[in-house]
């Protein structure tokens, strides 16, 4: 009996996602309100897929292409987004806590009202991304390219902007430390009143 129960228990522990949801996603390219938590979706072409309001916590999207994917309202807590292409993806109102996203491509991505906490977005391409009203806490933007990105109504004081490109980056009602402000000015950032 124990021999039967043990593999079952392990399979539940290893795959917390709904297998049917994963199959549906890969077949139909659309999966809303799905449970894909902890699924391995790395090295895949998921461009223009629609995965809104879904549980994507712990998903491994590393090296996958999610160009223009629609992920609004999804929970990506603890997801692996290292070297993932999220160019022009819609991440509005997504949860991005404890995300590993070193080298991610978020060019032109929509991150309005997203919650991004304790995450590593270093060495990333984030040109023209829109962070309006995003809750940003303790995010590592070290050496990332944030040129022309929009930071409206944010607090970046406990985030790391060291070495980042802030060329034409737009700040409006955003809290910055004095050091961050001076650095942004030297990078030709734009401060909108």
């Amino acid at each position, binding site marked *: 009996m124990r021999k039967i129960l043990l593999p079952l228990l392990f399979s539940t522990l290893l795959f917390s996602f709904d297998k049917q949801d994963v199959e549906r996603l890969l077949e139909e*390219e659309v999966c809303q309100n799905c449970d894909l938590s902890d699924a391995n979706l790395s090295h895949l072409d998921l461009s*223009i897929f629609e995965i809104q309001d879904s549980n994507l916590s712990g998903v491994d999207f590393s090296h996958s292409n999610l160009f*223009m994917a629609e992920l609004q309202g999804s929970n990506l807590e603890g997801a692996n987004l290292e070297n993932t292409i999220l160019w022009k993806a819609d991440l509005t109102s997504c949860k991005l806590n404890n995300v590993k996203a070193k080298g991610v491509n978020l060019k032109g991505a929509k991150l309005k009202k997203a919650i991004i906490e304790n995450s590593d977005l270093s060495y990333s*391409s984030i*040109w*023209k991304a829109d962070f309006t009203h995003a809750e940003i806490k303790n995010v590592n933007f070290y050496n990332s*390219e944030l*040129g*022309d990105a929009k930071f409206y109504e944010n607090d970046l004081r406990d985030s790391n902007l060291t070495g980042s*490109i802030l*060329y*034409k980056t737009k700040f409006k009602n955003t809290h910055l430390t004095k050091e961050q402000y001076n650095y942004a000015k030297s990078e030709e950032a734009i401060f909108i009143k």
Partner: protein
Amino acid sequence: MFKKTLLILGFAASLFAVEITDDMAFKSSYLEKENSSKTTLMIYTTSSCPQCSYMKERTFKEANVAKYLQKHFIVLEKNIHQDLLPDGFEYFGIPTIFFVNKNGKQVGKFVGSARAKPFLDELKKIRTEVEK
């Protein structure tokens, strides 16, 4: 699915639009450098591309990069929406920089932007490749 089809059609249309063989500006760059050992750096841009202006206004103008470019490269800019583009130089993202040797052969490609130091390293790498 419909969106994907539209997108593919859009890309196909734009690829067809740039299929031009006679580009005097491109050819003249070779005539100009006929007696020169310089490599051509051809950057594809658009007017609404902040990364392109960063490369042109910041990276290319940084003292060490500017000096190196002047010594070893002929810089050519192509606005993909306004200029005629030569055949055989495929791009997806903008900016894309092509490095072309004196025979018109692509010897390197750089996509995106970079700060002066890593870009200078890239230029030196290309230079070494060309001199081999």
